[in-house]
């Protein structure tokens, strides 16, 4: 790593900025998912808009993918570097005495989230890209049918209990990742002042409510299809 990212603080800030970006993305993603609970039509319209709007597809989507990849790659690189910074291990190391499980296991929760994203890409993203850009069908409508296909596809995916189970576990781990990560991102960019208490409690609520929202949508469709 050269240039700006060769410094430990720069890497830390880069991790935090990509994290904050992903934190905002999660809100948008959840908002779209939640519409599926209230109205199939609204969900279809929203999905079609997100999936075909050129600004979202060709400007925001690449930025998002870069953000995700960067956060993962940098996270794993840092973990390896940090491991090698202690070449002889302690015979007795009581990590729980001074730091939370979440903060000590970001790489574990991160790895589970990565596995989930791979599943998610196989489930939704790759078929979408295939239909839209390889087969060139931008209509969002299945041949011989009426209305958009998105809601039906969603219901179909969430009918499988194994997938829903994996989904629930992944989002619990995401919650644990965020429980440390949210406030940690603010600390990393140097934001530690009289508002830090608010940031911490907001972060706690965020790390509970956002994963809960995703889990709720999955379970809702599992029990109502």
């Amino acid at each position, binding site marked *: 790593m050269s240039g*700006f990212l*060769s*410094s*430990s*603080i*720069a*890497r*830390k*800030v880069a991790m935090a900025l990509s994290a904050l970006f992903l934190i905002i993305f999660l809100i948008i993603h959840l908002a779209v998912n939640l519409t599926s609970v209230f109205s199939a039509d609204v969900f279809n319209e929203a999905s079609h808009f997100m999936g075909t709007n050129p600004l979202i597809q060709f400007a925001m989507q690449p930025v998002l993918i870069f953000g995700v990849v960067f956060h993962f790659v940098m996270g794993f690189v*840092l973990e390896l*570097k*940090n491991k*090698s*910074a*202690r*070449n*002889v*291990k*302690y*015979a*007795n*190391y*009581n*990590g729980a*005495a*001074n*730091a*939370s499980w979440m*903060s*000590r296991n*970001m790489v574990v929760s991160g790895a589970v989230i990565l596995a989930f994203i791979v599943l998610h890409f196989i489930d939704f993203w790759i078929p979408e890209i295939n239909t839209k850009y390889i087969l060139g069908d931008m209509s969002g409508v299945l041949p011989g049918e009426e209305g958009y296909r998105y809601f039906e596809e969603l219901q179909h995916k969430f009918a499988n209990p194994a997938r829903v189970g994996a989904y629930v576990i992944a989002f619990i781990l995401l919650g644990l990742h965020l429980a*440390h990560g949210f*406030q*940690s991102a603010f*600390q*990393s*960019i*140097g*934001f*530690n002042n009289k508002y830090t208490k608010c940031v911490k409690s907001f972060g706690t609520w965020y790390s509970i409510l956002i994963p809960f929202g995703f889990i709720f949508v999955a379970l809702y469709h599992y029990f109502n299809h």
Partner: protein
Amino acid sequence: MNLTLKIWRQKGPQDKGQMVEYKVTDISEHMSFLEMMDVLNESLVAKDEVPIAFDHDCREGICGMCSLHINGEPHGPDRGITTCQLHMRTFKDGDTIYIEPWRAKAFPVIKDLIVDRMAFERIQQAGGYISVNTSGNTQDANATPISKIDADLSMDAAACIGCGACVASCKNSSAMLFVAAKVSQYALLPQGRVEAADRVRNMVAQMDLEGFGNCTNTGACEVECPKGISLENIARMNREYLKATII
């Protein structure tokens, strides 16, 4: 009280080293931890064995020389103290106590429980000072007005004794709390502002060069620091660094 001690023995920097078990008997609960170590060493000398090497100097919690990773934590289980301030009443009769040196690639073991903390000195030399000419006609420090809040925060940061417990406790072996304390104590004062940008850049560069790990904000350092150095200092250093490199 009678105790079983599992202590790291290592003849020198090149030796592989290992944990060795010792038994101590009739330890008074009023003894400090280092006095308990002295008792053990006297018994070893009496048996013609090599005593265990460990660092210490003031034995009153101000110099930062004593170290020791005790039962999985730097300076043992108590909070806000150094090992010389740890008392045997913290332990129970019959306890097994693990005693290890600080573990970090940047703190290589010299012998037994003594590690080389010169990395901290080199970080200090990279910028942990202000350049004043002490020729005899130096300006009175009190002539520069400083707000009480900043003066107190600077004093709090300056309380760091450079013991290295922050590195020892950190799962990443990061030295951020130490460096942040040293950067902050000057950054908060007008005299320190003059060289603030160079200071933070050079000290962080030296910290990275020494091979300390990357901070992931676990907060273990703040919990284990005998001087209560706050994580706010790390946030301040991050701000100082961003200001110095980007702006």
